[in-house]
């Protein structure tokens, strides 16, 4: 069985400070992993994806994530938060053996204070 756990439902940071959004996955197989972002009243947009080529993945808007197999984690980070980063973020796992199955975490709402 596969599951994705986002450890924080809400994260609040000040503008200019680092962002850390935590994600753990459980799987019998190494899945592809993704982070999606959803701004208010918008659909989800892909931020970055990990597919085993490199453990540190860079995405759009300065975000990056590091895959740590020993910890089954795929945390999302950004060195300096911007007001426009306020949104909901979803960690997603895609098992390689099931092309149509995507496992979504429950989401983390990021609030950025001025």
């Amino acid at each position, binding site marked *: 069985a596969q599951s994705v756990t986002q450890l924080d439902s809400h994260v609040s940071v000040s503008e200019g400070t680092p962002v850390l959004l935590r994600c753990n996955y459980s799987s019998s197989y190494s899945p592809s992993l993704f982070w*999606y972002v959803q701004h208010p*009243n918008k*659909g*989800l947009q892909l931020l970055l994806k990990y597919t085993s080529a490199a453990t540190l993945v860079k995405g759009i808007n300065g975000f990056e994530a590091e895959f740590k197999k020993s910890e089954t984690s795929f945390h999302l980070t950004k060195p300096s938060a911007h007001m426009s980063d306020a949104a909901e973020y979803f960690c997603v796992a*895609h098992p390689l053996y099931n092309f*149509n199955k*995507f496992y*979504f*975490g*429950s989401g983390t709402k990021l609030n950025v204070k001025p």
Partner: protein
Amino acid sequence: DVKVTQSSRYLVKRTGEKVFLECVQDMDHENMFWYRQDPGLGLRLIYFSYDVKMKEKGDIPEGYSVSREKKERFSLILESASTNQTSMYLCASSSDRGGDTEKLFFGSGTQLSVL
């Protein structure tokens, strides 16, 4: 720019009504999905389709059906709407070809309220 379009941003329906949610993609994608998004639960798959007239149940298909008569269009049908179907509905598509076969492209969502 690639696009997944959901026909309505907001819908208000009454209990027992038959409801149609429409989704159109212009990317010639093979796969299309309907998800339901509820606070604290993430996205849950209702149905997906991997080809015209082909469909498979997702995790929560009860109370829903789908139709895919053309490649670009995937419809979600609530046969008899109930209040527990009040939710945000998201359509997505993906391709079986090229370098982004695992990437989902999402519509903006339809917020359905059933009264």
